[in-house]
């Protein structure tokens, strides 16, 4: 997918800033996200990670600067990315219906919808729970369902905002495996986390954010072995909380 001329990527941020309530929360971010291994945005609480993801996904508008995809058609930009939030927001219907929902929005026919939803459910290991009301599932299952729902439209880019911060280790591992599977199937992963272990397991490259600024960006191995900045070093050692 990433090699086609039609691709969304690369995503380019130029001098992007975001202000709210008189406070500047994102400062002058400029970088490019290319196709390839998962990009993990790391940083302590309040660094602006969630905000950055929402800006990239288009849920909020930047106060300064520009966010541009390779493609210019807004509808295409919307349709070829998906996002998973920290807390899954599921509809009051069955698990299968939740997964089929984005397809329904796009006017996909019933039979097609049902088969693609069933496929997404099975890839997420949730086939047995297809008929269950989505809201009675456990948190781990619900988050996997949200990911399946994001995956069913075969997005080119998948944003995930701290998807496992509320989950236990077993559920976390299940989701990490799912994310890797999605990556192997060709979707670009852009994810935030404050869990170092998770970052080590999943990252291809790391973007380190602190107080709304991009302090470091490097391939994962380099980042963890030889962090360039003081803050990054402190963070890796577990000393940098805010």
């Amino acid at each position, binding site marked *: 997918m990433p090699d086609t001329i039609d691709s969304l990527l690369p995503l380019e941020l130029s001098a992007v800033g975001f202000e709210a309530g008189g406070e500047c929360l994102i400062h002058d971010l400029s970088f490019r996200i290319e196709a390839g291994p998962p990009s993990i945005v790391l940083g302590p609480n309040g660094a602006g990670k969630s905000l950055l993801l929402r800006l990239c*996904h288009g849920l909020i508008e930047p106060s300064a600067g520009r966010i541009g995809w390779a493609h210019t058609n807004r509808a295409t930009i919307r349709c070829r990315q998906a996002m998973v939030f920290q807390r899954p*927001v599921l509809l009051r219907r069955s698990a299968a219906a939740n997964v089929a929902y*984005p397809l329904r929005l796009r006017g996909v026919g019933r039979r097609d919808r049902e088969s693609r939803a069933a496929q997404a459910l099975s890839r997420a290991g949730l086939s047995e729970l297809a008929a269950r009301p989505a809201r*009675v599932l456990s948190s781990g299952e619900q988050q996997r369902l949200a990911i399946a729902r994001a995956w069913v439209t075969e997005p080119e880019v998948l944003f995930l905002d701290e998807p496992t911060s509320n989950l236990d280790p077993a559920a976390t591992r299940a989701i990490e495996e799912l994310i890797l599977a999605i990556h192997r199937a060709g979707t670009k992963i852009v994810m935030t986390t404050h869990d170092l272990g998770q970052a080590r397991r999943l990252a291809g490259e790391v973007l380190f954010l602190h107080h709304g600024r991009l302090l470091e960006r490097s391939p994962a191995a380099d980042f963890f072995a030889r962090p360039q900045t003081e803050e990054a070093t402190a963070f890796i050692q577990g000393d940098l909380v805010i």
Partner: protein
Amino acid sequence: MDDFGHAFALAFEMIARLDADLLEIVGLSLQVSLSAVGLAALIGLPLGAAVALFRFPGRVAVAALLNAFMGLPPVVVGLIVYLALSRAGPLGVLGLLFTPAAMIVAQCLLVIPIVAALTAQTVADLYEEYDEALRSLAARPGQILGTLLWDGRHSLLTAVLAGFGRAIAEVGAVMIVGGNINHATRVMTTAIALETSKGNLALALGLGVILIALSLTINLVALTLRDAARAQHA
């Protein structure tokens, strides 16, 4: 005080022997009010959701109007509909005055503000929860409206039941536009008014008891079904 005892006795007696006249007015009451509520829901649910979701000029005014009209006096609505449907009025050619259709129209007008105002509240609350997720999925405004209405269906049932309560209990509107014609437009509330004017107070009260029991039954059934469905879907 023995009027009350007499009333209950009369009520039970009428129900027990399935009094034909009683069944007729109960049937018409249900037909008129259920139709009115059905129509009002068709209009009021999307209207309320639209007021909650979309920014348009005059939105605040519309929301305020809906809330205010929850308290529209039925007799005033009846009068307005009468003037509209009278042969001397603009819609007289339809010949709807003194028919159940006119009664349905009048009650529908009374119920729409209730359904719409309560729906707006429910949908606004829901939207806070669903906003980001739905925008992320690129849902269009019309689709968001439909999704929120369906997801909020359990709470919206309460709005519809409130509307039904208003419809089945009012007498001012249906009296004027229906004419309380025997075997044609006589419903429970107008029958109660008639029996009161004839001094048959125990009978009027008995009919009142039956009306309340009917409303209670319908609400119980609806809420039980809702709770069962809700337990299923959480």
